[in-house]
């Protein structure tokens, strides 16, 4: 089996800076805003329709 070594891992994540994110993700932000504010039927990002999932184990415990 292939190993999953630590060398491929990044270290701690960077902090989220909203102002920077606003610049870097301007396209995504506009797309989300369009989905929220424009009339239905227009193309846009649809994150709100992503399937929810509840992963519950119904264990076969003796």
């Amino acid at each position, binding site marked *: *089996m*292939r190993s*999953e*070594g*630590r060398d*491929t*891992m*990044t270290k*701690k*994540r*960077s*902090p*989220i*800076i*909203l102002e920077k*994110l*606003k610049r870097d*993700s301007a396209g*995504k*932000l506009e797309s*989300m*805003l369009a*989905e*929220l*504010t*424009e*009339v*239905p039927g227009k193309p846009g990002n649809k*994150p*709100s*329709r*992503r*399937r*929810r*999932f*509840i*992963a*519950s*184990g*119904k*264990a*076969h*415990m*003796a």
Partner: protein
Amino acid sequence: MDAHEILWTDTGPYQQRYEKTATALMAVERALHLRRPLNGGEDEFLALYTCLAAAPSETFTTIWEDPFSYFWTRLAYELTGWCLNPEPLPDVLKAYCAGLGTDEPHRALALHLEEFKKCIIALDLISGTHRRFDRPLRTELPFSIPGTSLSMLGQGSIEVVGSNGRMLEVVHNGKSLQLRAGAAVSDSDRPRLVECPLLRDQDLEIKLKPETFNLPGLDAARGFRGLSENYQVQQTELLREALALIERHQPATLEHMRELVQVIAFKPPGADEYSNVSFSDVPGAFILSAVRHPYWIADGLIHELLHNRLFFILDGGEILQDVRETAERSEFYSPWRDDLRPLSGLLHAVYVYVGVGKFWHAACASGETTGIQRQYVEDQAVRAVLQLKIGIAQLRRHARFTESGILLFRELERDVDSLAASMRKLNLSPAAPGTTARSDGQLVPFAMGNDGRPVSILYSIQSHAEKFDVHRQCANLTEILNLD
């Protein structure tokens, strides 16, 4: 990036999802600012948003990576979208509105915006800020204060008026109180601010905080009813033993836990219908049954971590086609469940059991167990392979994959082939006696046959299919298992 990295090693999706959620928060703020669907009822939220957005980035990130923040933002996005462009309300949103005590989405949005004050309470407690809300936060006890180790415990409703440095000003049953973390109270129904147990192990820090799941529309908190306040801290030794097993047999998983897991909540094994559970709307948190067997807990930790990881991976792009909300049917046999499952459920199961299977194979290879412990470890290693072969066959036959999903599924097929090869290399046999863990942690035979002897692992797999594969989707089970 190759499929193996995407499935097992890349930590990029964690950062990307938190950033996407923060972008959604900004979109909600701008939409409410521009369109004012609540005719001014959103003003306090807009002012409080400005305070949170102005917080130091480390503080914002700490609060933002709490599972509550994703839960809140996703619902804020959906409720805002609904109020601006009404369309039939999805069932999940209906359940959330009902949990808030209304069936009217504008009222639900107004109440939901109030819940944002939990993030502001966190901000004020972290920064020692004095604040009085325009309107008190009216909410139900107990609740978690996101991004902190603090929860407010007690029974019934409470109004949080504001914060006074390191204390919260609240009104409970008409009486004004100031709550400071750790202050003793004589009556367990009275509101109080408590610190949850923290498990620190090298770089890992996990909060044991069941209040995280006490959210409207979520029934998960049922399993914690009546538990003593010491229940979580009583499980820390068990958790440490399980983490030591993971460090020994699958150390890379600990790195992902450090990146992803914020909260674990233990419940008694018999409480509620499920054993362990993860929610895609509460990422970075899961509930585990406190089965007193470290290998069982290690399995559960890896299992739930991987469900959470798959939530993050799928947020970047689907693997299966046609899995939009409400579009799927539960009609497929799963070797892990007694009920029929949707294909997305089978995909989740295959993914997590590949990871869990690797753990059990590493434990087998170490030779560290003897007697019935060894029998149990072997059972889990073999069972994972047989069940995975069935899961892969079901997906191969019934699922339609996206373009990128085809590559990821091929990688999962290769993973299962590797586990099957490992099973042969370790001389593990499907004919070995099936062994399982009881809810009290005792290891026992999986079942007894008519001859009074324990049934084999293979027999238990075949029996499950005979009983629960009601559409005979795996009628060619011998061919699927391919054990020659």
